[in-house]
């Protein structure tokens, strides 16, 4: 899933179909790729015939390299990663990235190398897929449940160390909870809980809710703005509160 749009077949179905039919061809090695200027990439990918086919095959080799790199790194880093076929997934991500790139070729502004722009699609696809693999066995419905002990656990965690600091922490947390309960919507509280506390990736929550990454980000932004302004209105500086909680007791 791309940030703003899902990959979809190119409007000129012949282009994607021609490329798809070449998937059985062994991939081009990246050490043999022909250097191209940005405008050559755009022109050749838009051309027909053998010129376009060669550009597509070489671009796919670049994308596959980026997707393999991202998946290998993500697989090693994500603690919940299941065993999955990295190479097949990389092939799928490269293919989806290629389709998305063809779909958005007209959006390329030329303010970076074409290959860097193209890599960003492959890496986006690969990391979205890796996060999906990593979180697919976790019940987000259970994590989204706001009732239960999560608030009380935080409160109890403020009770240690320097008594004065403990008291200030407890007061700050009480005010934060009050603002969250009174001024944030349930959806905003849920999003803060699962993304900040449970570290659920934003795109996974968006997928679970049938929403978009932009929409969930905006929901969180609105919640943060509200929290910040309400804290300030009550005489709390969020940076001072951060010091209060981040420095050791």
């Amino acid at each position, binding site marked *: 899933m791309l940030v703003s749009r899902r990959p979809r077949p190119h409007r000129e179905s012949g282009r994607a179909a021609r490329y798809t039919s070449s998937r059985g061809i062994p991939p081009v090695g990246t050490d043999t790729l022909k250097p191209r200027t940005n405008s050559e990439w755009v022109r050749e990918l838009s051309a027909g015939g053998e010129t376009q086919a060669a550009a597509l095959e070489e671009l796919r080799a670049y994308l596959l390299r980026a997707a393999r790199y991202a998946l290998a790194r993500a697989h090693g880093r994500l603690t919940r990663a299941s065993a999955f076929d990295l190479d097949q997934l990389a092939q799928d991500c490269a293919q989806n990235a290629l389709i998305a790139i063809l779909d958005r070729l007209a959006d390329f502004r030329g303010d970076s*190398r074409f290959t860097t722009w193209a890599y960003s699609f492959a890496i986006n696809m690969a990391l979205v897929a890796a*996060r999906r693999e990593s979180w697919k066995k976790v019940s987000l419905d259970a994590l989204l449940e706001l009732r239960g002990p999560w608030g009380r656990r935080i409160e109890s965690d*403020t009770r240690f160390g320097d008594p004065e600091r403990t008291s200030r922490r407890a007061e700050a947390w009480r005010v934060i909870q009050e603002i969250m309960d009174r001024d944030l919507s349930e959806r905003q509280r849920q999003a803060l809980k699962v993304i900040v506390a449970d570290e659920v990736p*934003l795109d996974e929550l968006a997928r679970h809710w049938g929403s978009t990454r932009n929409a969930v980000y905006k929901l*969180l932004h609105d919640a943060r703005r509200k929290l910040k302004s309400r804290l300030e209105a009550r005489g709390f500086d969020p940076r001072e509160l951060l010091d209060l909680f981040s420095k050791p007791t």
Partner: protein
Amino acid sequence: MNSRFIERLLQQVSGTEAHEISCSECFERLPACVELELADTVDVGTALAPFFQHLGQCGVCRDEYEMLRDFLRSQPEDPPLAPGSPPVSPA
């Protein structure tokens, strides 16, 4: 669940700006911003403040930024910017 949650929440709240770029805008700026950082010719923290502010708030965009940056760093054999390509400028 512990006070680390409150710390993360306050980090995000204290770093909140009235206007923030969206994930889509971040994605559009990503390639040029990564190239600028790797070129090391400008203070990207200042030149690209809205972009980096977004990365400070959005873990998935930050992951994609870091992965693209690290991938490009790992590819010394990548062909140099071909003649005729425009210079990179801040997004």
